[in-house]
């Protein structure tokens, strides 16, 4: 990695805080899961945090993110409220979607988080539509849309890339390539590993980042986003990353045989949470850790305490 600007200590601390928060909240979710209080499929981002965190670090409060059913990291990195997230997963009325959306449909418009979708790829054109509106508003806002390597195969994603480039929409496409769609490896789904090259043919800057390095991701996005705010149009990043847990659910699944633990270990060695922890002075790190742990306790307590929605809520929100 080539990293011209020296990284400021406060940047490291900020990124670490965000990474650690995502990691620990998800670990907590995984721990709670077997108790069946979360009656919701959970798709953990553990191992993949650096992509969302690195990119969201560059976003303004009035920028927008759009994520998927594997959206915990996106939600949290953009400032989503862990209380509302946990309560949502518990099906409680204090949840960000009042318990109606669950883990796959996190949302937080106040923090610029467009609702996540459980139908792969669907969020991508919706995010572009939001970007169209932002472009009309001319306030320099941008959208970052996250989606998987599997989603990149859906027709509507190609269609969106063309449209976004044609209309110079302020949108950063971020493909989180974790090499798998559920248990299916890339080579059973991609004719060629040239996604980034393909996206470039729509006439937008497109870059592949294979290291998983949060600084490299952040640096790459930084220039693209700055240009975008000036009307430069969309850009694309393919970020290699790795999902450490099973596709859905709290456990590891290396025994299943569809991928090898060695691959994961390779990524584990590059773990950005551990890496940034090591870059911080001990005391500062401990302070951050303690704050996060307290935040998580509060979030779980909030989720537990929040009531279930009343039966009448079933019929609310069908129409606006």
């Amino acid at each position, binding site marked *: 990695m080539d990293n011209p600007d020296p990284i400021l200590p406060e940047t490291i601390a900020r990124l670490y805080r965000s990474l650690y928060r995502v990691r620990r909240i998800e670990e907590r979710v995984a721990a709670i899961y077997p108790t069946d209080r979360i009656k919701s499929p959970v798709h953990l981002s553990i191992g993949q945090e650096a992509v969302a965190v690195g990119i969201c670090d560059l976003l303004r409060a009035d920028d927008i993110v759009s994520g998927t059913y594997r959206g915990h990291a996106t939600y949290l990195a953009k400032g989503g409220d862990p209380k509302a997230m946990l309560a949502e997963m518990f099906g409680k009325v204090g*949840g*960000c*979607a*009042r*318990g*109606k*959306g669950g883990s796959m*449909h996190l*949302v*937080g*418009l106040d923090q610029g988080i*467009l*609702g996540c*979708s459980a*139908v792969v790829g*669907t969020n*991508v*054109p*919706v*995010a*572009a*539509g*939001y*970007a*169209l*509106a*932002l472009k*009309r508003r001319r306030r320099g806002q941008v959208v970052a849309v996250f989606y998987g390597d599997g989603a990149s195969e859906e*027709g*509507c*994603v190609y*269609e*969106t890339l*063309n*449209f976004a480039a*044609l209309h110079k929409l302020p949108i950063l496409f971020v493909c989180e390539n974790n090499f798998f769609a559920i248990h299916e490896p890339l080579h059973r789904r991609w004719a060629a590993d040239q996604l980034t090259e393909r996206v470039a043919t729509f006439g937008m800057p497109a870059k592949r980042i294979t290291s998983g390095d949060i600084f490299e991701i952040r640096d790459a996005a930084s220039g693209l986003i700055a240009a975008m705010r000036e009307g430069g149009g969309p850009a694309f990043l393919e970020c290699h990353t790795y999902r450490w847990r099973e596709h859905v659910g709290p456990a590891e699944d290396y025994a299943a045989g569809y991928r090898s633990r060695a691959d994961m270990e390779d990524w584990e060695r590059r773990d950005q949470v551990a890496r940034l922890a090591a870059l911080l002075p001990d005391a500062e790190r401990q302070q951050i850790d303690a704050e996060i742990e307290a935040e998580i306790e509060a979030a779980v307590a909030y989720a537990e305490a929040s009531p279930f929605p009343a039966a009448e809520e079933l019929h*609310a*929100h*069908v*129409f*606006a």
Partner: protein
Amino acid sequence: MSSPDTVVSTATRSLRYVDALREAVAQEMQRDDDVFCFGLDVDDHKAIQGSTQGLLEAFGPERCFTTPLSEDAMTGVAIGAAMAGMRPIHVHIRMDFLMLCMNQLVNMAAKAHYMYGGSVKVPMVVRSMIGKSWGQGAQHSQGLHAMFMHVPGLKVVAPSNAYDAKGCMIAAIRDDNPVIFMEHRLLYPIEAPVPEEPFTVAFGRARHMRRGSDITIVGISNMAVECLRAASLLEEVGLSVDLIDPVSLVPLDMETIIASVARTRRLLVVDNAWVSAGAGAEIAAQVAEQLGGSGPLSIRRMGFAPTTCPTTPALEAHFYPNPLTIAKTAHALAGGSAGWEPDPERARLAYQQAFKGPF
């Protein structure tokens, strides 16, 4: 501006259905900067049969623009823009093409407000036109509103005259929900008195096109016009038709229909679509649920033949209900003498005659 019974309009100006659509959109774009109109070919010289004519000139290419052939993603774009507070009108020259957008319409547009706990709204209008005749055939002729009626969260409107076209379009644009706006190509040239100023036609209020006592006929979209012709043929043989145009299918004004059938005990629903699990099935089922217990009830549905639409006029003639088949069916349902049928020449399809309203 309107009541379910009559159009309370002092308008003397007659407008074609297509121009009523255009005027409604233009006035709303004038009123609200967040309204925009996009979709394949909205900005070309044909302007969707003229229904988007002048929008590009008046409002510029940011607010009236064509798209790539990418209906699925463009629907997502409309949804996203709507979530951001804009009011997109997405135009499709055929309703058949909505099959390309079903995922976004059914899984996102219909559900977003609910599954995000009320935190977002999706105020968008999906205009789509139904084609007919001259070889439109299998893939350019479908009325697929029933699919949208099936899914909570979508509104569905199908105005049958220029007045309602304008009023419903303005209401649809101002509505905070996704509205599927169904138009019929053959209605476009038909004129009716339409006020010049903007007005809304409220959804969920059926329109009584004729008052009668012998049989209730519900005519959907352009079938309302065909039914009107059938009703006048029936009148000549002494059958009085209570003719109802639901105008909007979601919400659906069952009250008006139920009240009518409670009097007539006879219901014929004529739809511009297939019958199976269609709009007519819903109307018939609700009527049966609410009135079936209280005595005999005669119900029939008409619609497309249960086949794919053929192109050859020789077969297409048998594919659609028409004033003759509607009148015959209603006559038989009302217990009329067997074998009656109106003079075919006088029962020509309504759209082949200038339709002038008012009603």
